[in-house]
Structure formats: structure tokens, C-alpha cells
């Protein structure tokens, strides 16, 4: 509850800042970006993040399921290690590498964001599935559930809250990282922020940065709701949420 109040306050300040700056005519000698510029950049930003997250999720979750299969467990360590290494590279470097590889444009930005957003989802999905009590899986096997039935009816529902938390964390991070997309020819709120950086105008920087932060908070909030909604009731009781 406290946390929500703080978040809503911050959100209000961020939106207020954005509205105020956008309503200014000029900052120094620079024109501020118009409402239509701001909205189209925000839309492009959101689109990029969502595409990257959908792709990252559809790679990370099946990958996590794969490396938790009994026969394939030895793949888990190298895969998680690989993803960890990906995460330790500076986001700027990952994005910068993409341009020479894939050329300037949206595709480079999205690929870079995917790589960067993959790890939290992969790590959470792996932990979520791997931490299920072995006795639960064994009971399922012992009652004659097939491997597929166990994955669908037991492992996924039990791991879902943890997987969703991974997607949430990844999304929030990616909203920030997506600011850099503009460097490799992508669009988004980074365009405004970097204009401000080049112009050395803090308010102009804020015109891009404040709505980006607001977007991260809003997406995080929505995904947290979804996460709670998707948590099976039997588990909510255990965690004492109910």
C-alpha cells in the first residue's frame, strides 16, 4: 500500500513535468517537441518494447522448459551462463554491436532489446520450474500423467507467477534500455532525450526521460496486476496474500 502511494506520487510528478515542459514554447534557443511528436515517439517506444518482450518471452520460456526436462538438465548451466554473460555486457555495447551486424533500423534495436531482456525471463522461468517440489512432479508421474500433461497442468501453472515476475522485471528494464534504440536508427522517446543531451538542455532531456520513466512505472504496475491475477489461488493462500 505504501509503495503504491509512493509510485502514484512519482507518476503524477513525472506526468506533470512532461505536461509542463511540453506546454513551454522554447527552452533556450530550442523548440520543445510538440504533443504530436511526443505521442508518436511514445507510441513507437511502447511498440518496440512490446515486440521485444513478446519475442524474448517466446524464446526464454520454451528454453527454460527445455533445459528443465529430465534428459536435458545438463544444458541448464551453459544456457543460464550464456544469458548471464549477455546481461553483464553494457546495454549500450549490445545495441552498438547490432548496427554493424544488422544495419541501422528498427530490427537492430529490437534484436538488441531482446537479447538484453531475455535473461530476467529465462532466469525466473528456470527457477520457477526448477524449484517445484520434486515430490509434486513424482506424484504426477506416479499417477500416470504424461510428460506433456505434467508440463501443462503442473509445472506451468506453478511456475507462472515467477515467470510473470521475470517478464515484468524484463519489461521495466527494457523500457529504459529502449532509450538507446535511437542510436542504431530506431525510434522512440530516446530521440527527444538525446536531442536534449546534445543540446545540453536538462529540461529537454526531461521531456524524453520523464515519460519514459512514467511508462516503466505504468507497465510495471499493469504486469504486477496480471501476475497476481494469474497466481493460482492455492498458492496465494500459501504466500498469505489472499
Amino acid at each position, binding site marked *: 500500500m505504501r509503495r503504491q502511494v509512493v509510485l502514484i506520487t512519482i507518476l503524477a510528478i513525472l506526468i506533470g513535468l512532461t505536461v509542463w515542459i511540453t506546454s513551454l514554447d522554447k527552452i533556450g534557443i530550442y523548440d520543445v517537441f510538440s504533443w504530436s511528436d511526443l505521442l508518436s515517439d511514445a507510441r513507437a517506444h511502447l511498440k518496440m518494447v512490446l515486440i521485444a518482450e513478446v519475442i524474448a518471452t517466446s524464446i526464454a520460456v520454451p528454453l527454460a522448459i527445455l533445459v528443465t526436462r529430465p534428459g536435458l538438465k545438463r544444458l541448464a548451466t551453459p544456457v543460464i551462463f550464456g544469458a548471464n554473460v549477455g546481461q553483464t555486457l553494457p546495454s549500450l555495447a549490445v545495441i552498438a554491436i547490432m548496427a554493424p551486424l544488422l544495419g541501422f533500423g528498427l530490427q537492430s534495436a529490437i534484436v538488441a532489446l531482446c537479447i538484453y531482456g531475455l535473461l530476467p525471463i529465462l532466469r525466473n522461468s528456470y527457477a520457477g520450474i526448477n524449484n517445484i517440489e520434486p*515430490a*509434486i512432479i513424482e506424484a504426477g508421474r*506416479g499417477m500416470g*500423467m504424461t510428460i506433456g500433461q505434467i508440463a501443462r497442468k*503442473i509445472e506451468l501453472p506453478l511456475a507462472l507467477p515467477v515467470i510473470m515476475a521475470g517478464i515484468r522485471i524484463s519489461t521495466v528494464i527494457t523500457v529504459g534500455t529502449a532509450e538507446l534504440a535511437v542510436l542504431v536508427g530506431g525510434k522512440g522517446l530516446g530521440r527527444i532525450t538525446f536531442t536534449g543531451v546534445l543540446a545540453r538542455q536538462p529540461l529537454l532531456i526531461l521531456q524524453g526521460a520523464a515519460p519514459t520513466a512514467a511508462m516503466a512505472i505504468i507497465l510495471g504496475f499493469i504486469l504486477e496486476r496480471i501476475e497476481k491475477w494469474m497466481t493460482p*489461488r*492455492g498458492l496465494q*493462500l500459501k504466500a498469505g496474500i489472499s
Partner: protein
Amino acid sequence: MIRLDQVTKIYPDGTEAVNEVSLEVGEGELCVLLGPSGCGKTTTMKVINRIIPITKGKIYIDGTDTTKIDEDELRRNIGYAIQEIGLFPHMTVGQNIQVVPALKGWPKDKRSERAEELLELVGMNSAEFMNKYPSELSGGQRQRVGVARALGADPPILLMDEPFGAIDPITRVRLQDEFLKIEQEIKKTIIFVTHDIYEAIKMGDKIALMNEGRLVQYDTPSNLLFKPKNEFVEQFVGADRALKGLQLIRVKELMTGTPPLAKADERVVTVQARMEREGVDCLAVVDNEGKFLGWVDRVNVGKGETVRDIINRSVATATANAVLSEALSLMLSSGFKTLAIVDGINKLEGVLSFDAIQLALSEVAQRRGSE
């Protein structure tokens, strides 16, 4: 029903968990796998539904080699209750119990009806508990649900690994007693794992005592107690075997199932001749439906013409599941050295004599003397 033929299990790390175990469990029998921790009980149980693949040997169910049966199909017909229970936390109690019926494609209303029936069977109010989640149950309640879930699709075979292990002693005794009652109703072939000698004697028709992966003695509880095969068995069952026997051995193990009988309208002389021939001092008298009426005793033969005239009706009876100490105390209080064993509708199932108990106990004493 279930037959293990020289079954050996060596784990990938080289542990010889089960070593050439051969075992046959008859239909409707409850076979207890007993032994110290790590002796291979759990492994022996889990090779039956192929949760653990065996290294050597064969396992047959109703004469069919289990490796010839699809493993999921095999498991859906074998109830499975493991030590850790393993209830599905995201499913309600009702849904947990319906897992196997659902897998077998039972219609929905039949499934939920079955779940309600099973909850009641294990002593839980179905209206109250059907929609509860495992996290809302006590340890004992979870164990009960685990047993109910194993019984879900009414499988002919039940595998149970220390099903009453992780609960307090008082609840455990209650669950054991309740399970014995349930067992009489459901009549299944059961493999029951425990490390507790008391539980084994109490629950088992037969006990397979294991040590270090080998089967040491496969016998009835009374033979295990009173005729231990070697020193290991003797030590495992403990020094107070006679006392354990009295407390735990059930009457049906020592009773004579087909005793000589008498009818109420028979002439005393005929009956007297029968007693001479059989070498007994008294005969149980039954009616035409086999219901127990009383005793005719050798000391009273001069006192009447027909059995009806001299029958002694004022004697206590016990059920086949009573333990020896109960039977003994009935004998002592009635002053009658033979006890009629009857079922729920007073039908005679057998007789138990004081001598039979004494004989069993004296074997313990003799063994002690010869050590």
C-alpha cells in the same frame, strides 16, 4: 497378483539398492515392506509402477510382464501415495482426488461424486473440504487426501510409501485404525512401506523384512515375531517379541478357520464322539446359516439328550481383527479357554484357543532358551 522375480536395482552411481528380491503378493493382500532406513523399501515399491526402472529381473502383474504395458496406462491403474504426499498446491482437494479419474476420461459428475465419496471414506467432511486448497489443511488431513487421491480411480493395486510417516503419533494411530477399516471395505492389493515394526505387524497380512537390499524374511506377522529366521530378524523385531505379539498380532492369524462344529439339534452322543475324534474339549455350535450360538462342553455331556439342552450361550466372542491381548482378556474374564471368532453378523469365522496363543508364545521362550 504382483510378482517380483529376482529384481535387482543398481542406481547409476553404483548403489545396489535392491538385490535379487523375489516376492509374490496375492490378490487382496496387504504386503508390508519393512526394514531399516536405506534398506531399499522405497526402491522396491517404486519399481512396481516403473517410476524407477529395474536393472535386472522381471515384475509381473496378473501374470503380465509390466515392461509390456504402456507405463502411463500401468500407473493409472495403480494407486500411488508417496511419503512426501505431493499434493498439487494449485488444485483444490476435490481436483487433486480427481486427477486419475480425469486422466481416464471419467465424466465430470461421476468424478466429483467419486471425490466426495472418497473424502467421506477417509473421514473428511466433503462439503467442507472439497474446495479447500492443500495449504489450508493440517498434516493429518493432507495424508488423508493423499490416500483418497491414490484411491481415485478405484485401482486394484495400491502403493503406499510411509503414508502415515510425517504426522504425530496419536493421529498416526488413528489413521492406521481408520485405514484398516477402509482396507476391509475396498479389498485391494496393497504394498505398504514402513520402517516401523509396530505399524508393519498391525497393518500387514504379510511382511517382507529387508536388509541392505535383500529380502531377509517374507512371512506373516506372527511368524516374523514368533519364528524369526535369523539373528537380524530377531534383533529387528526386538526383545519384547511376546509382548508385541500380544499387542499387535490379530486373532485371524492364530485362529483355526475350519474348526469341527456342532448343530443345536444333534444328539449329545454324536457330538461327544466327534470331540473324542478331534481331540478337543468343546465344540462351537452354529445354526443352519453358520451363525454362532454357543459352546457345547465335554464336562456337560451327561446333562441332556441333544446339544440344545446343554449348550452354553453366555460366552464372549471376538472379531478376526481383534488383537491377541483383547482375545486373551476375553478368555480370562469369561473363564472359557476357547473364543469364537465371528464377523459383523455373528457368523462363525473360526475359533481361537488359549493353547494356540500359548504355543505361539512358547516358541519365543524356547528360542530364547536355546540362545
